[in-house]
């Protein structure tokens, strides 16, 4: 069950403030990193939605974001549509494809589910790589950003673009919160805990899984479109399975099933990667080692661990006060 606890809200606000602070104090590369974190945070948020609350560990989320990116790029550069409309259509396209994948894979579980999603992700990758219409392995250039000049915002300025990404991330978070507290979300969590029971209660498993996967896909579509706008260039590389693997690592690093945890994880991961690569070319080793340590110490992730410790403390103090109260009986 998902509860937006005060700790989670606090962390979210802290993250938002931190991002705003960084946006106004960072130099150029700092803004690039910030934008990278914010877009990645959207992807891992979408992944936590299905993995943390639905038990559906997906290895195609990176590829789906890539689908969003390519849809946006094609609509913009080949059809000349307005970026805002393109973003909406890209989100819809990704949502529909995600629905199909969620529905098709709904009967598989565990490692089989992971592999099934991997298969679809790889199919998307191969399709894009081979397609000369989509630029093949050369990728597509000439992608433009949203035009918000009517509101006086110039998105070609790195700082303003970063702030836009922050705004979209917060909206995505609120959207996910809404989903999880709705009937669909609660059914999903119930399904994750005991699928047989859900089925016995007469719930439509396939639909629940597919619907949530689709909603997750909407977020991914937007994230992909923003990613395309950020770099203003896309290549099939975006759909490589290693990105989905990375997203999974981040979700665990941050805290599976907490919704805010993965966002923190994204920040930690990107910053860590950049810091380490300043010292060595072998940052894979360090990241691998850290992941192992995190998982072995309980796999609760950074935020998950904090939440856990605080909960334990509260429990202890509750028990203590309970003992206090009953002392004289």
């Amino acid at each position, binding site marked *: 069950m998902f509860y937006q606890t005060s700790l989670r809200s606090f962390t979210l606000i802290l993250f938002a403030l931190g991002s705003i602070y960084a946006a106004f104090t960072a*130099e*150029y*590369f700092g803004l*690039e990193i910030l934008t*990278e974190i914010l877009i990645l945070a959207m992807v891992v948020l979408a992944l936590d939605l299905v993995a943390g609350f639905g038990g559906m560990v997906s290895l195609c989320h990176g590829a789906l974001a890539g689908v969003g990116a390519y849809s946006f790029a094609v609509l913009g550069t080949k059809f000349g549509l307005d970026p805002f409309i393109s973003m909406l259509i890209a989100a819809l396209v990704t949502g529909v494809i995600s629905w199909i994948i969620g529905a098709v894979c709904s009967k598989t579980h565990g490692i089989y589910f992971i592999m099934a999603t991997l298969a679809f992700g790889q199919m998307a990758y191969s399709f894009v*790589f*081979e397609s000369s219409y989509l630029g*093949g*392995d*050369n*990728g597509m*250039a*000439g992608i433009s950003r949203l035009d918000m000049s009517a509101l006086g915002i110039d998105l070609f300025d790195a700082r303003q673009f970063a702030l836009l990404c922050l705004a979209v991330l917060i909206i995505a978070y609120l959207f996910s919160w809404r989903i999880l507290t709705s009937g669909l979300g609660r059914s999903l969590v119930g399904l994750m805990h005991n699928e047989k029971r859900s089925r016995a209660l007469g719930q439509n498993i396939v639909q629940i899984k597919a619907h949530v996967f689709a909603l997750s896909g909407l977020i991914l579509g937007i994230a992909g479109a923003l*990613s395309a706008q950020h*770099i*203003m*260039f*896309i*290549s099939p*590389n*975006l759909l490589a399975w290693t990105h989905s693997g990375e997203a999974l690592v981040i979700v665990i690093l941050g805290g599976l099933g907490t919704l805010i945890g993965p966002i923190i994880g994204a920040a930690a991961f990107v910053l860590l990667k950049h810091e380490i*690569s*300043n*010292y*060595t*070319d*072998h*940052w*894979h080793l360090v990241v691998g080692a850290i992941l192992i340590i995190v998982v072995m110490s309980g796999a609760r992730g950074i935020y998950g661990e904090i939440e856990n410790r605080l909960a334990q403390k509260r429990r202890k103090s509750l028990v203590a006060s309970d003992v206090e109260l009953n002392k004289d009986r």
Partner: protein
Amino acid sequence: MKKTAIAAAITLSALNISVASAETVKVGMLLPYSGVYAALGNEIEAGFDLGLKEFGAGLDIEIVKEDSEADPGKALAKARKLVLQDKVDVMSGIVSSAVAGALRDFVHGAKVPLMITNAGNDSVTGASCSPYISRFSFSNSQINRPMGQWMYDQGIRKVFAMAPDYTAGHEMIDSFKQTFEAAGGQVIGTEYTPFRKTKDFGPYLAKAKTSGADAVFTFYAGGEAISFVKQYDSFGLKADLPLYGSGFLTSPLYVKAEGSAAVGVKTVLHYVPTIDSEVNNKFVQEFQALHEGRAPSEFAVAGYDAAHALALAIKGGANDRASIASSISKVSFTGPRGAVEIDPATNNIVQPLYVYETVANGEALTQKVLAQLPTERDPASGCSM
């Protein structure tokens, strides 16, 4: 080691210019230092550093390194950082053609000179050329163009072609096909294998064998080249179906891993360490002294010549983006490859090409130059600057 600027040890201490002054020329090196292309990135850098040591003595050059990871998105972010934050005067590097494509518009718009030291996509000095982008390595078509006529002159009439299925593979084969067929030959079959997904070439080699060709012409590089050459030999095809190709197939960087399978393979490339010239012999000796006896490869020489060109430009008075860009387009000198220059019409390098055969030299493998083909200049093909 990377982000912090490394003052390349070419500044004579007497001049004591360790503080970046207005005269310092800042170079942004964007190469893959991790991932699949790390070996190439390090090799190019080795050549570049040696070049600076050789030709940049006394010049005030500061290098800032960034890892492109051969990922277009990440490379573009790092390129923006180098240009907008570190404010480099010139950028160098780029191994992957996809990265070159990603960077092109940015570099052109920001008016920062970029000296490409590997990426071979034709379009970078063709339809997407820019007065700011110069290339010191090769273009995919350039390398293979003269091979068509040369192979025809050897008596070969029917060729089966194979390459990995991505832009470079297509460009290399197409360029060979054009000249070979113009000379009167026939490419009777072409197979494009899934790029970097093919480990076992058995199925394709079987097709080549039954095609009835006189010879096979291929382009493969890196790990795929090693697998391909070894498997070609294991099927015993070389006797009846000699193997030809682009020199990357048997590059000195990794030919050792191919072992005796590489013997007898004839390829065309813009550089081999056995080119017999005073300039090259000196280059090879110095390189070997620094790298445990390992001979330099075509990747190292690209870095070396780029450094040479940069040094020439700076000595000629260029010290900012605009002046470096215009000077680089006009360089010409004699390097380890021979006489080279940048063609102002495309900004691609103009260089001689060498057909060589990989031969055994005791336990080791070496390259025997069979022919030096005339200097190859790319046609404009859509470039207008």
